[in-house]
């Protein structure tokens, strides 16, 4: 099993990738474009953004400010012309709102998957950077105490068992973090062939596979 990546994925980056590559968003967009073509809408009057996400401006430790950026899905609005076109307007707007719904749901899925991923990542990192080294230090000290006949061999072995358990717990957490990573990758693509909208893709960590 590979070790944890040095830094976790950023949420805003995940959202950007998702908006770019999610199949359901791309399908809804195609649908909207096709609708406009079918209805013969050609005279664009203005553009609107149906999904607006602003990147967070983060202040770094050295005081510099990380640049924020925006993610959006811009669609054109048209000159609807006379009253005869009212139906066309309604049909187009329906497709536009479906695109918006798809995008909002997709974003929600990605955020959910990202949070599960980030918790699993942080947990694995905490085991790796804090708990396992602390357990090792405790074991080293326990051996020194055994040397000085301050504790007996049974306490030494029991402590060794605790140390082994902490390493097992780390490996478990690392595995969970890779499963959550896979779930996040899935959420960035959207469901394939599920035919279901707004479903939660992320699996509960450690749920399915057994140990």
């Amino acid at each position: 099993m590979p070790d944890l990546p040095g830094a976790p994925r950023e949420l805003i980056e995940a959202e950007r990738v998702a908006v770019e590559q999610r199949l359901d968003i791309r399908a809804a967009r195609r649908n909207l474009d096709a609708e406009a073509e079918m209805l013969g809408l050609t005279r664009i009057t203005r553009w609107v953004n149906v999904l607006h996400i602003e990147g967070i401006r983060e202040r770094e430790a050295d005081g510099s400010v990380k640049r924020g950026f925006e993610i959006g899905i811009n669609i054109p609005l048209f000159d609807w012309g006379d009253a005869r076109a009212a139906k066309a307007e309604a049909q187009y707007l329906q497709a536009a709102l479906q695109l918006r719904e798809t995008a909002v749901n997709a974003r929600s899925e990605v955020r959910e998957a990202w949070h599960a991923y980030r918790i699993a990542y942080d947990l694995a990192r905490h085991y790796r950077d804090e708990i396992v080294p602390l357990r090792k230090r405790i074991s080293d000290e326990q051996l020194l105490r055994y040397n000085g006949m301050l504790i007996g061999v049974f306490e030494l072995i029991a402590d060794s068992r605790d140390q082994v358990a902490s390493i097992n717990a780390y490996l478990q957490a690392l595995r969970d973090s890779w499963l959550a990573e896979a779930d996040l990758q899935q959420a960035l693509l959207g469901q394939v062939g599920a035919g279901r909208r707004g479903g939660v893709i992320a699996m509960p960590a450690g749920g399915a596979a057994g140990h």
Partner: protein
Amino acid sequence: MVTRRQFIGRSTAAVLGAGLVSRAGAATLPEAATSDRATLVAPGLPPNGRPYHPVVTLNGWSAPWRMRDGWKEFHLVAEPVTREISKGMVAHLWGYNGQSPGPTIECVEGDKVRIFVTNRLPEHTTIHWHGILLPNGMDGVGGLTQPQIPVGKTFVYEFEMKKSGTFMYHPHADEMVQMAMGMMGFIVVHPRNPAFMRVDRDFVFLINAYDIDPGSYTPRINTMTDFNLWTWNSRAFPGIDSLVVRTGDRVRIRFGNLTMTNHPIHMHGYDFEVTCTDGGWVPKSARWPEVTVDVAVGQMRAFEFDAAHPGDWAMHCHKSHHTMNAMGHAVPTMIGVDHRGIAQKINRLIPEYMVMGDKGMADMGEMEMPLPENTLPMMTGTGPFGPLEMGGMFTVVKVRDGLGRGDYADPGWYAHPEGTQAYELRL
């Protein structure tokens, strides 16, 4: 050996360096000599006042004084100190004038003493003069006979030493904590007649105990009985000075017990008589010969003998756990346990593991295993014939021919005359 003059000279600088006594205060306060070393300072004769034969404080020294208008003035500064318990371990304690226990106060029956007590602890304190007959208001019981001495303040105690004998001083304010932190000192009041109860060598020490977790420095102040360091003058074997004696000397050894349990103090090679208790001198008709004298909590005892037998004579508390350093009282007995095959299995889990205790614990006296930081081996010390396997309240009375009168320097190990030593039977 540090001479008295050098010693006081060094301590002056230390006091001024501390800079805590105000200039106005410095004009009226006597110098507070200080030392952070656990080195025995051989006694000198008193520079003024009534003559006496000074005592020797194991790993310590006696406080200098200033004579002013017929009063002997001492200055004790209660403060946090660092004390080396034995080589390889230091304790963060509270004490007086740079060390725990504080300097021994020596004066003479009939002396009027004025003792300035400056509090540099983080909390209030007092000093109780244990066993001294004095006016009630000088007894030093916080809340009862005086307000406690606040942080940063100096109180003055004045009384006359009405009788000679063996006494102690210790706080009577947050007393449990302050004594568990090492605050105590010895007081010797010499007889007005220097010929009365005259001895050639007069040793003093306080019996104290600490509970310092392996790897730490500050005593656990809430421990009641399960201490892990049993000390004399806050030193454990092999850190306790030997008692160096010239053959033929009349020797007195005085000690006071400020731990939470009794200590049967045993000396090899001699029988002795207790000649002084906390209440005063014992009449000759009331003494009986002993080889072990029990000193209960809060008591003092002084025994005397004529040093007729040269040798290295062990002197120790006879509670065998009190001649050990930090150890695990819950460690299971491994004697008789068959370890075959087990050690290899444990080694796979813990590579540095070694079987210990399956043939008794004498291994501990020989092996030098890595131990927790700032921790003394449970049994340690090396003599001329191998490991001594001791710790805590153990030292050696070294009786030798032809030593100088004031010579307390370690004479080395005893050379046994031919035919006077146990030998191996060879068949």
